[in-house]
């Protein structure tokens, strides 16, 4: 069995034993369905607070789904960063990583197994959340074509994976786990703001993917610059992974 697969299975087993495989998908599911549910009850909530319900326009199904996606970008991202901040740093700190790296294991397999573990878990979580949103939107409002559901999800998930990779990279580089989460989220926030402010010059920005995903739901098309952003985000992820492997190796062999 290849070392990568062995380490990947260890990651999977670990996140099963510490319940990450249960709680993270369930929280994303709640994030996903909270928006259709509150929208459904909105007329009653408004009525009981004395506002005429027909003053507030009822959003369309695709609008509801687009808003759900943005939940993953805020609370979802916070949860992912907090869950993965110690993925490398904590093992290095406790010394358990020595037990792996003293065997004939390359830093590349070690880091790629970590990244794959994060990726599979993240995709499962947003996937479950999106399915929940879709299901609720369909039974409470008009139905949405499934093609829009999964394409928008993939585009949005790529943004989350990009931030995950930053968290992994920082985890190879830094000691303080709090700092790792803080900087990861900071990068996400700064990128989002810069992309909005410098709309014309930041067409390549990974944070464009969030807008593109909403566009897919609202208009069926991600917009002209989407593929540029997708290609560059994938390139960034690859570069960050290479950086993580180098950082991990340096951290061990130089100090």
């Amino acid at each position: 069995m290849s070392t990568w697969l062995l380490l990947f299975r260890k990651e999977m087993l670990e996140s099963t034993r510490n319940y990450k495989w249960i709680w993270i998908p369930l929280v994303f599911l709640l994030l996903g369905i909270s928006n259709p549910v509150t929208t459904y009850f909105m007329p009653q909530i408004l009525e009981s607070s004395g506002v005429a319900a027909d003053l507030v326009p009822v959003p369309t199904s695709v609008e509801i789904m687009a808003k759900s996606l943005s939940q993953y970008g805020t609370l979802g991202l916070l949860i992912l960063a907090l869950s993965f901040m110690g993925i490398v740093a904590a093992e290095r700190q406790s010394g358990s990583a020595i037990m792996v790296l003293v065997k004939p294991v390359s830093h590349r397999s070690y880091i790629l197994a970590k990244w794959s573990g994060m990726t599979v878990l993240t995709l499962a979580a947003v996937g479950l959340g999106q399915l929940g949103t879709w299901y609720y939107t369909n039974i409470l409002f008009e139905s949405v074509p499934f093609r829009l559901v999964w394409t928008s999800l993939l585009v949005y998930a790529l943004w989350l994976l990009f931030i995950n990779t930053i968290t992994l990279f920082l985890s190879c580089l830094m000691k303080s786990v709090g700092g790792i989460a803080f900087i990861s989220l900071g990068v996400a926030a700064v990128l989002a703001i810069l992309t909005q402010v410098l709309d014309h010059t930041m067409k390549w920005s990974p944070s464009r993917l969030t807008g593109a995903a909403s566009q897919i739901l609202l208009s069926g098309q991600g917009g002209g610059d989407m593929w540029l952003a997708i290609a560059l985000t994938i390139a960034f992820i690859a570069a960050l992974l290479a950086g993580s492997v180098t950082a991990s190796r340096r951290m061990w062999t130089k100090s």
Partner: protein
Amino acid sequence: MNLLEVGGLTKRFGANAAVDGLSFAISQGRCMALLGPNGAGKTTTLKMLSGLLEPSSGTIRFIGEARADIRESIGYLPQYPSFFNWMSGKEFLEFTAKLARIPAKEAASRAKELLERVGLKDAAKRKISGYSGGMKQRLGLAQAVIHRPKLLILDEPVSALDPQGRREVMELLKEMKRETTILFSTHILHDAEEISDDVMIMDRGHIVVEGDLQQLMRDHGKPQIRIKVGNADPAWVQGLRDRPFVREFEFALGLITLQVTNLHEARESLFREFVDQGLEIEGFEMGQTTLEDLFMKAVQA
């Protein structure tokens, strides 16, 4: 035959050299103790030999090993081993066996065999988080030898253990000594004297003394006399320095330690003086300097 040859091994952290130009060899089938006070560079040396740390300069050569990754031929136990506490002892050993490229089936049988050998058979299915310090150390030993390494490197394997745990680990080491070459570090001389064939004493990044333990003891085992005197006249005590048979003189806490050229001559001469001077001798001991004396001397030099 040499198993490992090290030449000019150096590790610098910034301007400071933790290990400075170490050259030595380990012979196949021997057990070598790496001695030295804290901060001597023992851990840094062992980490470089294990492939965990990159030397700033120098060479580490495994004789007769064509493998690209020296970690395949080395078993390593860190000073403070830390495990994946959510695994059971059995799971952990099987995991490390597979990491060392042992096929799954063999990994399972090898893990079982070793768990029994290190006395963890009954605890095999329990979570490591519930293990005691001694149990963890024994599990650490098991993972170090799981792939039958050519060289077993242990960093202070017994220093953190209570007397019973220490005994258990020492017994295991004696057994493993028969199967593989061992290099272990310690700051406790007694451990080195108990199981090692060779010793290497390090201080501040340098080798101070190195060689066959028995040979070193013979070479450095100088005749020695210790005297405890109740009513010692300071002038007489200091005057002992100048006796022709005294090579080295030390006086501390009322105890006189003399290294002498000839035990018999020294004894006769001293006994005569005791009587003539009417000294109250509380203790008189003749013997040889020990490894401890050598160690203390080497480290202080």
